[in-house]
């Protein structure tokens, strides 16, 4: 225990004195949360970009409701040729020119262009209104997109901090001989590894709490579940991801290789774990693969707690999956661990 505490204490000192790393670990998550909160706030959320040639959008307003849709960003452009070129390169989804008649251009390979075309034409088909459509609204407190995406952003930040935080440090220690020096002492690999895990885990939990409550002051997250359960999910998730980082760091001696391997792990998780969009309707294979990713379980459980007020019974499959993965990763990482090159 004395040896574990010595290494744990030294690692904490190292982290807190490394001002650049510390500030990066604190500032980056705030940037991420505020940046994405702005990008995905309903007010700022314009999905489509349409170029209007020559005239301001107000002139089009009287023509059709299409030009009042807040999901479309209308951009005034003087030169038709340049605008068409932007459509060709998917920088604009559509270009509209009004010379009495409305002319529009879309890229035949652009899905957004086709949807806009349907909306543009549909908005003029008065017969649609005659059909018997009945609008139903969803009751209860509204879950904004930012509320839905935030657990994913927090979990993604935890993932990067865990994987790169532990992976890089151990590879650097091995490369410059710190590990060899420690190997010459009675310190065991288990003591060293657990000290590194615990140090990183506590730091990540503290930083995530600071980011969560700090951001909440401005963004006012939708949080109707148990803070304790959320703490449990993030802590277990962080432990699992640190263990995964340990596998990469177990033998690697090159920071470049470690960087590549960590990116290889983190990017698929970022894409397929549902950080940005729901996996509903995705191909079965994607959903199956996602179940083997720790990030998926962290995000699913955190979203369920924050947005739906889920309890332990609803999220226990996620907790179980994270526990099993944590045990597996820690065991593999410890078995593979080498002090030296």
């Amino acid at each position, binding site marked *: 225990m*004395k040896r574990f505490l*010595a290494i744990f204490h*030294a690692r904490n*000192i*190292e982290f807190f*004195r490394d001002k650049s790393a510390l500030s990066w670990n604190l500032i980056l998550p705030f940037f991420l949360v505020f940046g994405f909160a702005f990008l995905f706030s309903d007010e700022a959320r314009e999905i489509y970009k349409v170029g209007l040639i020559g005239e301001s959008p107000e002139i089009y307003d009287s023509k059709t409701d299409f030009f009042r849709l807040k999901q479309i960003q209308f951009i005034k452009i003087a030169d038709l040729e340049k605008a068409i070129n932007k459509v060709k390169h998917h920088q604009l989804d559509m270009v509209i020119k009004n010379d009495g008649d409305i002319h529009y251009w879309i890229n035949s390979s652009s899905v957004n262009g086709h949807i806009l075309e349907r909306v543009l034409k549909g908005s003029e088909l008065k017969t649609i209104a005659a059909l018997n459509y009945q609008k139903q609204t969803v009751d209860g407190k509204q879950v904004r997109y930012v509320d839905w995406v935030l657990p994913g952003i927090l979990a993604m930040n935890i993932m990067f901090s865990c994987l790169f935080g532990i992976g890089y440090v151990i590879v650097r220690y091995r490369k410059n*001989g710190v590990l060899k*020096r420690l190997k010459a002492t009675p310190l065991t690999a288990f003591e060293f590894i657990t000290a590194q895990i615990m140090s990183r885990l506590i730091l990540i939990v503290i930083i995530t709490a600071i980011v969560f409550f700090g951001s909440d002051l401005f963004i006012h997250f939708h949080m109707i579940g148990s803070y304790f359960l959320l703490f449990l999910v993030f802590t277990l998730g962080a432990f699992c991801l640190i263990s995964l980082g340990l596998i990469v760091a177990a033998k690697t001696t090159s920071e470049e290789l470690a960087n590549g391997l960590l990116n290889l792990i983190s990017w698929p998780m970022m894409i397929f774990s549902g950080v940005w969009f729901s996996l509903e309707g995705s191909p079965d294979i994607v959903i199956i693969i996602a179940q083997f990713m720790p990030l998926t379980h962290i995000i699913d459980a955190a979203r369920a707690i924050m947005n739906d007020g889920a309890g332990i019974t609803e999220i226990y499959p996620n907790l179980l999956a994270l526990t099993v993965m944590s045990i597996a990763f820690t065991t593999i990482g410890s078995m593979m661990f080498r002090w030296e090159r």
Partner: protein
Amino acid sequence: MNDILEVKDLKKHYPGVKAVDGVSFTIKEGSCFGLLGPNGAGKTTTVEIMEGITRQSSGEVLYRGNPIGRDFKQEAGIQFQSTALQEFLTVNETLRLFKNLYKKSMDLDELIGVCALRELLNRDTRNLSGGQKQRLLLAIALINDPNIVFLDEPTTGLDPQSRRNFWELITSIKKRNKTIILTTHYMEEASELCDEVAIMDSGKIIAIGTPGELLEAHFNDVLIQIPEEDFIINLDSGDFKITHKPGKIIIHSDNLHDTLRLLGERNVNLSRMEIRSRNLEDLFLELTGNDLRA
């Protein structure tokens, strides 16, 4: 003195390389044992096997008659040839970190005094000079009050003053009845510090004994060095056994009195003559046929 460490037919083979090839020797308790040799001779590998850091291909290392085990790390102090310390820690914090890794430890205040670290206690270890860092690494090697201390080329890269200061430190440690195993390719260092030396080359020990014994066994002459322009004798006369160095003539003499008399009779100007005894470097070159490979 009892044998504290015994190395028996130690071998370490890597694919295509016999780094250590059947090395055997014993080390007496309280002595300073020097393992000498050029770079690549196999001395670091030998020492790291003795430390328990590297696993041997075959052979064994006995500590007080028993194979070295896990507890050996509590008994041994190690200073590697090159090592890094955890960053952002001060000298004091680094010492305390290592102190807490052992069951027993030397009194920190005493250790700080012995290794002359008192002025450096609050300094970040990244800001130490080469000599200061070596003193800290030595203090770490001694922190568990070890019976046996391994020092792998501890003065490589130090300036002459720092090196001599380090030698004084080692001498003071020897006085505490610690057994020291020192690898070096500085023969002067070995002469100064070691009670017994083993010379290694190509993974084998090619000579072992006290410096005095080895010199006596291999040499019975002294060297007289004279500037070339002062040596006006016909070199083909066969009167002297000589070797050349740029601008100098080295005369090998097994009877100094007779050689000096003969040189005087031949009217050789002896005013710039230098006479010296054979040393370990001569022995090393004699045995390995190599220059010291730095």
